């Protein structure tokens, strides 16, 4: 009896899992194009393009799916393996070379030539999507940068003006002006500030700064905008590097400073607002919105969400200046639109992808303010539309015009590098490892960048 029950249950479980696997097959009959993104707001924004596209192409359905960024790339890879990946998808530069080297991406050169699709319409990001074979594998979807978002009321209460944040400097030794501001903005549950006597760092009501101590191996919206003001560069070469400079003394010193911020209670401790996988349980937006932090660095794609926060008035400032008081360096990233090599409808998919890369669609979707279009005219339109809603993009546009943006390094083996580096950085920030971790990280990156 017992054994039989066991088998019955096992069989039921097997059936249930088998049922899960069979969904979401390929298109047949009326044609469906599947497009994936990891951004819920962009999924919404591009839905307007999808509707227009469907009207212009009767019988075609565009199905936009969104999966959280933590699972997105594994889900995509499983899709490649099992043969039901989406026809086209948003991709990150970090994963592009791996997919291209595995033959999973369709080169777009033939389509571009046949359609006389003009790549010069994009002002940024085209080269990030060129692989080592010289072929173009993606159209840039957007560009992104980082800025400091702050709670206007909290800053005013602490006696700071917008100008103070906009010209904030820092250094890796004692943090400089940035550290003083973070300390002063931190308030414990009894109302004492971080730089006042009796401050209790174990009971914090508001942290002066958001998370800078994350395991993200490029520190995109966190430490990169600080460390790069010191002249530090992520890698030995701008594209297709052989080594990441995790062992550079400037980098090591900076990480030590970010860790000390948390130790002194001015920044949330590692894991406090994130789950075990480093994923934010409370988003950047809610951290500022709930008054848990007074200022934080965050991505440009959040600009509209910050502006729409109820009760909290959010100011935007460019990222910090280096110790010299004039160097500002902001990592800019262009996501791309890729076509899966295994798509059953390559021509139709290209039609959709090229439509997404058109002025019309970019302007329409860009108005949502959830991303910055790579096409200048669309960017202007989206800036204008957002200004009407009270969202000011000038900080980002100025950073671009002043040439303070630098592109993300295009490199191989992103997934493996992330898997190797992230736990080590997390161990460092949670005090399980010390400075001795960094030479190993650089070595590991060298080893993985060399691997084909």
């Amino acid at each position, binding site marked *: *009896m*017992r054994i039989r029950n066991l088998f019955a249950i096992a069989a039921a479980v097997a059936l249930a899992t088998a049922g899960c696997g069979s969904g979401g097959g390929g298109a047949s009959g009326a044609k469906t194009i599947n497009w994936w993104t990891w951004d819920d707001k962009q999924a919404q924004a591009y839905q307007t393009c999808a509707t227009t596209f469907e009207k212009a192409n009767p019988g075609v359905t565009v199905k936009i799916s969104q999966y959280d960024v*933590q699972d997105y*790339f*594994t889900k995509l*890879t*499983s899709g*490649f*393996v099992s043969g039901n990946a989406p026809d086209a998808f948003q991709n990150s530069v970090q994963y592009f070379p*791996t997919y291209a080297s*595995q*033959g*999973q991406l369709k080169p777009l050169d033939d389509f571009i030539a046949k359609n006389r699709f003009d790549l010069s319409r994009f002002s940024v990001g085209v080269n990030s999507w060129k692989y080592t074979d010289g072929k173009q594998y993606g159209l840039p979807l957007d560009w992104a940068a980082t800025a400091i978002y702050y709670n206007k009321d909290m800053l005013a209460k602490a006696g700071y003006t917008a100008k103070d944040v906009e010209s904030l400097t820092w250094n890796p030794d004692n943090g400089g002006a940035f550290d003083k501001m973070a300390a002063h903005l931190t308030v414990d549950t009894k109302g004492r500030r971080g730089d006042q006597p009796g401050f209790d760092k*174990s*009971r914090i009501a508001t942290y002066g700064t958001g998370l800078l101590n994350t*395991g993200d191996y490029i520190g995109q919206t966190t430490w990169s905008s600080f460390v790069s003001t010191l002249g530090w560069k992520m890698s030995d070469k701008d594209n297709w590097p052989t080594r990441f400079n995790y062992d550079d003394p400037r980098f090591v010193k900076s990480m030590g400073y970010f860790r000390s911020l948390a130790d002194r209670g001015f920044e949330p401790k*590692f*894991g*406090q*607002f*994130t*789950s*075990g*996988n*480093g*994923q934010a*349980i*409370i988003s950047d937006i809610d951290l500022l919105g709930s008054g848990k932090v007074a200022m934080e660095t965050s991505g440009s794609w959040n600009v509209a969400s910050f502006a729409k926060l109820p009760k909290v008035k959010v100011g935007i400032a460019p990222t910090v200046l280096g110790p010299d008081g004039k160097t500002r360096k902001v990592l800019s990233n262009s996501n791309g639109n890729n076509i899966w090599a295994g798509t059953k409808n390559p021509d139709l998919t290209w039609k959709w992808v090229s439509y997404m890369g058109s002025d019309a669609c970019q302007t329409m979707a860009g108005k949502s303010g959830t991303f910055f279009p790579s096409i200048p005219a669309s960017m202007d339109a989206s800036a204008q539309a957002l200004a009407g809603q009270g969202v000011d993009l000038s900080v980002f546009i100025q950073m671009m015009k002043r040439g303070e943006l630098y592109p993300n390094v295009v490199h191989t*083996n992103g*997934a*493996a590098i992330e*898997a190797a580096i*992230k*736990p*080590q950085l*997390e*161990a460092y920030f*949670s005090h*399980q490892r010390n400075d001795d971790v960094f030479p190993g990280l650089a070595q590991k990156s060298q080893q993985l960048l060399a691997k084909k």
Partner: protein
Amino acid sequence: MAAIPEQDAHAPAKLLATGTGTAGGLGAPRRRPGGRGAGRRAGPAAARRRDAPVAWLFILPALVGFLVFVAYPTLRGVYLSFTDFHVLTPPKWVGLANFRELVSDGTFWHSLGVTAYFVLLSVVFGILVSLVTAVILHRLTRSTVIRGLILLPFLISGVVAALVWAWMLDPQLGIVNIVIYQLTGHRILFLGAGGWAIPSIAMISIWKSMGYNAVLIFAGLQTIPEQVYEAGRLDGASETQMFRRLTVPLLRPILVMVVVLQMISSFQVFDLVQVTTQGGPANASNVLQMYIYRKAFGELDFGYAATMSLALFVMLMAITFLQLRIARANESDLS
């Protein structure tokens, strides 16, 4: 003196039993129809020969299932563990290279340690909790409703259980931490701190499997004759003594099965980790299955992932075999 009337009393019953037995034995052949009787008389070998096609017909579906879904994948997995395989390009034979990598892969050994720690916690505490629950159930109630209720967590999918627990244990919003914060003024990073991650996941796993194990043990308890406890009570044994000296030894075969099952399923833990921590923070909960999955589906290194799976398979086989041998699971003290 007392023994004699007892013997007397039993004697007629025994006689009666043998009497009916003989009557049935003699009567049966006479009642059988000729054809079938003749077949039987032809000898057991012939009968087996004739039954064989039917038997094969019945075995066939299971056999096909086994060959297609178990034997072939296992053999292919073994083959792949000797190759460099990225799924989308054909596998390349590399001999023992993957095994050499395995031996020097610190993360693999770390993951193995993490898995062993998880297995230890979830088996020891899981079995203890289930055993106590089952015994209490057995002594106090016969209600199928309560037995059904106990089984509920097992019926919830692992993903759902993990999600709900992750929310409840959340440092800022989770109900568990809100209570802890009210009591102590501190929050515990159940899934966010290295030292807590594995115990927290083990706790979720125990909560989930407890009911199922308890029901198995409960069924085992019902096979223990009431007389044993009566005798115990007559001899003046206390409830705890009876539990230790009677229940546990007589339950051994069931307990061994539950331990083996729990151990194997704990070694294979994946869903709980994938949903709650994805192996973090800093690899603190990077169990072997998680690492294998990441290597395979995250980094497309299927060859090496197959090697690790093979290693896990061999280890599980060895552990199960040892356990069954040491615990003499096929013998019961009842007979």
